[in-house]
């Protein structure tokens, strides 16, 4: 080979594009012109964003890009922002290695529109109402709706939710005034200031309250009707009558059985519902919580050093005689003990393990210990009497919680009940189990970007801390560490909503398709898993 030929070859190598590809409309062969293709290094020290536009043939190429791993994303007005390697429109992407061996393809899904009108019970348009599109999602195992986008109606009551990723949505309207209040504030904008005065001196009082009303006309999100959005589609006529509903009161009395103590003067109250917590105070031990809508609540009362709670369910009447018995809080001494530590498995450093105590059921009471001393001892200050779940603030990678004892009663699976002076002992084992492996498709190939979930055996599914989830790597591998020994099942879904595996109804449908795996103390299990396809 002559020197010239070698030089030409080197030159060609330098000139060869680092990455090229084509952008087309999903489900068609139609190219998308003037789409913005962005290339970002996965190496955080390189923050440069390289950008090119696609040609009329939908083609793009990047030249002179240093070798490495990159994320590719494609944007075009009217299409869902796409990432290379995503499993569905709007899903997680996977990195690509540059220089790339072959041309890549990115499919763009056209966005869709939902439109309609919000009116009151007399058929009059409701302006300045907030209209929200939500998707079903899972929050701590419960089905709930997660807001995706919201817009505000104009004076004709009209709205347009646009730029939506195709899929299933639920639409709600809330005619409550969207207050931004007075004075100055900060939000996603840097700062703003405003003043607002009213022609009126007082608002017209009312016992009615505006809540989100779901299409076709229900305050109950479970009864909301799904709206299917197809790519480039517009679903019109999603009209909602947003009538206010009657709100209720929770009235009651705060009292105590503590000898020699009584409840006088101001009490602090906390009303914890499914989705929100409201703080208020009452100048006397009798209280009147207003504007409460139907649902399950925990009312927490605090008077000086005493505190207590009561569960209340509101249907369609006021609750008039709630009694909250408050008692003195306790200081609970505790200790974190590491078992089975060795030179190879030193286990976690106890000084990094803050103990977090949450009321069960959750009512917003969360107590966090200071970092334990080197001998593992700590003190939980002012713990109100009641039932709690105890965990660490961080997930352990090199250990697992073996036991949580308050006095002599074990509370790892069931929680602890604080009734009187007692000591908390948390035993951590330095020999957790590990499960690792790869996810295969029907052809037996490893596949990247697949959500893999480790689920504990049926009787331990309330232990949400035992669940683990991770997407497979570029080479199709996963690895879960810091596992508690026991029986588990492994699932790998091609498409799954985050947290769905905590929902028992969802799991019932897939139970048979999981792979059983036994985790043993200090051992590594190697597993090959078949992806679940719909």
């Amino acid at each position, binding site marked *: 080979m002559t020197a010239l030929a070698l030089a030409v070859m080197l030159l060609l190598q330098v000139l060869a594009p680092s990455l090229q590809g084509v952008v087309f409309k999903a489900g068609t062969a139609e190219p998308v012109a003037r789409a913005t293709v962005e290339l970002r290094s996965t190496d955080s020290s390189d923050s440069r964003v390289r950008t090119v536009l696609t040609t009329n043939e939908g083609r793009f190429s990047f030249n002179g890009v240093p070798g490495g791993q990159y994320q590719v994303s494609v944007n075009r007005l009217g299409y869902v922002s796409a990432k290379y390697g995503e499993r569905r429109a709007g899903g997680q992407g996977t990195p690509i290695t540059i220089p790339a061996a072959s041309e890549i393809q990115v499919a763009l899904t056209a966005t869709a529109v939902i439109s309609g009108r919000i009116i009151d019970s007399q058929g009059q348009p409701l302006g300045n109402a907030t209209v929200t599109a939500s998707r079903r999602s899972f929050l701590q195992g419960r089905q709930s709706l997660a807001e995706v986008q919201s817009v505000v109606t104009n004076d004709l009551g009209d709205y347009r939710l646009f730029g939506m990723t195709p899929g299933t949505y639920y639409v709600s309207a809330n005619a409550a005034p*969207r207050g931004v209040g007075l004075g100055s504030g900060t939000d996603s904008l840097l700062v703003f200031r405003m003043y607002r005065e009213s022609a009126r001196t007082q608002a017209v009082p009312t016992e009615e309250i505006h809540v989100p009303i779901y299409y076709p006309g229900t305050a109950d999100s479970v009864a909301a009707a799904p709206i299917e959005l197809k790519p480039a589609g517009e679903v019109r006529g999603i009209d909602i009558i947003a009538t206010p509903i009657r709100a209720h009161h929770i009235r009651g009395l705060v009292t105590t059985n503590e000898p020699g103590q009584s409840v006088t003067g101001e009490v602090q109250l906390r009303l914890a519902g499914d989705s929100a917590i409201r703080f208020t105070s009452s100048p006397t031990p009798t209280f009147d919580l207003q504007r409460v809508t139907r649902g399950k609540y925990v009312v927490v009362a605090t008077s000086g050093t005493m505190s207590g709670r009561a569960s209340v369910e509101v249907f369609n009447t006021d609750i008039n005689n709630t009694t909250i018995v408050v008692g003195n809080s306790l200081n609970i001494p505790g200790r974190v003990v590491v078992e089975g530590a060795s030179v190879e498995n030193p286990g976690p450093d106890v000084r990094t393990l803050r103990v977090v105590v949450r009321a069960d059921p959750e009512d917003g009471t969360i107590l966090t210990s200071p970092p334990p001393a080197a001998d593992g001892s700590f003190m939980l200050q002012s713990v109100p009497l009641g039932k709690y779940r105890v965990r660490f603030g961080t997930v352990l990678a090199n250990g697992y919680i073996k036991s949580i004892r308050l006095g002599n009663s074990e509370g790892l699976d069931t929680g602890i009940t604080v009734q009187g002076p007692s000591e908390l002992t948390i035993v951590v084992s330095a020999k957790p189990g590990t499960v690792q492996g790869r996810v295969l498709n029907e052809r037996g190939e490893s596949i990247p970007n697949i959500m893999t979930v480790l689920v504990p055996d049926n009787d331990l599914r309330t232990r949400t801390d035992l669940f683990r989830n991770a997407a497979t790597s570029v080479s199709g591998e996963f690895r879960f560490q810091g596992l508690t020994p026991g029986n588990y099942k492994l699932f790998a879904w091609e498409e799954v909503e985050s947290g769905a595996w905590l929902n028992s109804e969802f799991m019932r449908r897939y139970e048979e398709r999981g792979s059983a795996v036994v985790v043993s103390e200090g051992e590594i299990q190697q597993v090959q898993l078949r992806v679940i396809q719909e």
Partner: protein
Amino acid sequence: MRRAATFPILAVALLLRLTVAAQAPSGSIEGVVVRLGGNEVIAGADVELTQSEPPSAASSPAIFRASTTDDGKFVFKNIPGGRYRLVATRAGGTLAPAEYGQRDPKGRGTSFELSAGQSMSGIRLSMAATATITGRVFDGEQDPVPNTRVLALEAAYQNGRRILSTVQAVRTNDLGEYRLFWLRPGRYYVAALRDDFRAYSFSILVNRPDEFGQRQDASSPTVRERTLQDGRAIEETSVLVYYGGGTDAANARAIDLLPGGSAATIDIPIHQGLAQTQRVRGSVTGSDGQAAVGASVRLVPLRYAPHLMIPNGVADRQGRFNIAGAVPGIYWLVASLGASSGYSASESLLDISRGTSSLVRVEVADRDLENVSVVLQSAFGFTGRLRVEGKSDSKWDVTQARISLVRDPDLLGLPNTTGLGARAAVQSNGVPSNDGGFALSGIGQGEYRVTVAGIPSSAYLKSVALGSVDVLRDGLRVQTAPTTPLEIVLNMEGGVLAGSTVNEKSEIAVNATVVLVPELARRGQAHLYKVATSDALGKFEMSGIAPGTYNLFAWESVPAGVWMEPEFIRDFEARSKPVNVTGGSRQDVQISVASQTKEPL
């Protein structure tokens, strides 16, 4: 439904009043609510009667409510004598509120006196239908631009300067269309800002027509790099584009809305709002002489805009900063460390009474600004004395006064500024001791004026001096810790000006704005101006006037604060009444009102 909820409340109010009625003869007020410009009656309007001056300082004003019947009528019975305001509103936004004595749908009404046992009838409150502005936002290729922020603006005056203030903010839809609505009839301007990465609900502002509001926003500019044809890379950001005026607010085209009217095709070419930006680089040194690692640095523009862009950044490990996104103009460069009172260094209100800070004036032209070096220092303390001259109200003593420094101009984005239109959050509040001595702490660098609140209405601020600086005339520029005390003299015996407003035919002019303007040499001193509104009998009164020569002006309708603008006031100078005020004197004057300002704003 609404009426059912209102009636029991009204009944309670009436019951409460009945006990009063036993002692004093009570009166009644009757009237009708109609649509402005016609005889169509408005049913279901909420009418509110509020005592404008409570019977004693300790009691809260009595409020009475009624709803109009199907024939638009309302009646209040068993009303004790007193001074009241009356306003009709209606839920839903299609009608602007109507207030007793109101001159136009954007203006406020006036109070009136109901004497004991008096019956007022035949009151007519006219509600104007609200109006809309619609249009489209498009780019250089004529393509619609979704998610653009569109603002409805109103002109107002701040310290004698005309500004455009946001009254409503909406966003364009996927077709680039927008609709501004529920606007009270009057003059508006429209501007749009391309900020499609900021699609947050907070950026939408819709006031009901019975809410009067103004808003000013500030955000970090989104800076994008663009390579020119000659291969040079420049940085750009989006700025406001005004309807009919490009990026210059002075050229914005006015949109006049009639009751129930609509202005369509108010289209905005948003690509005009692309502005080249420069960088500002430099270093921050802490009060200890070391590099101020992690100091927050922001550039606050001196020039007002309804939406300000505040470029900002954080000093690196060597104390260096490199801030992108500055368009040409004059800025206050604010550097601070440990002063953030929000949730992050760049996105918060700053409280520089804590930590250390520095304010430096910088000018950005057509290139990057290099080597700006700032030194942080702790906030300063002031001591001073409030001296009282003249005979004082026996119940008042000097410890009731509150001395504050307020930033002047009070720019959004500067540390420790006040809320817009609110009296909250001043730099520091000084409470004098019995001998008038006071201390102010936590004062950072900057320009201030001195205010004294909590003083009797007869009193006026005679002088404020810091060493040889006449603070009332020249303001207070704070660069370093003061070495002399702040000397404030308060005089208890200000002049009083009372009188009535009349029209050309010498008839009583109701709800006129009366403004006392100081002589030419002192027109820059905002504290010397006095403003009053004449009541339903055309009466007004001003007190606590500093001795001196003034001109008295009166207008039927005038935008608040415009009288500080020399060009405006010049046209009315000839009609004004010269007044010479001496200490402790009382004068009665009759002033004829100018029927119209030449042009709406």
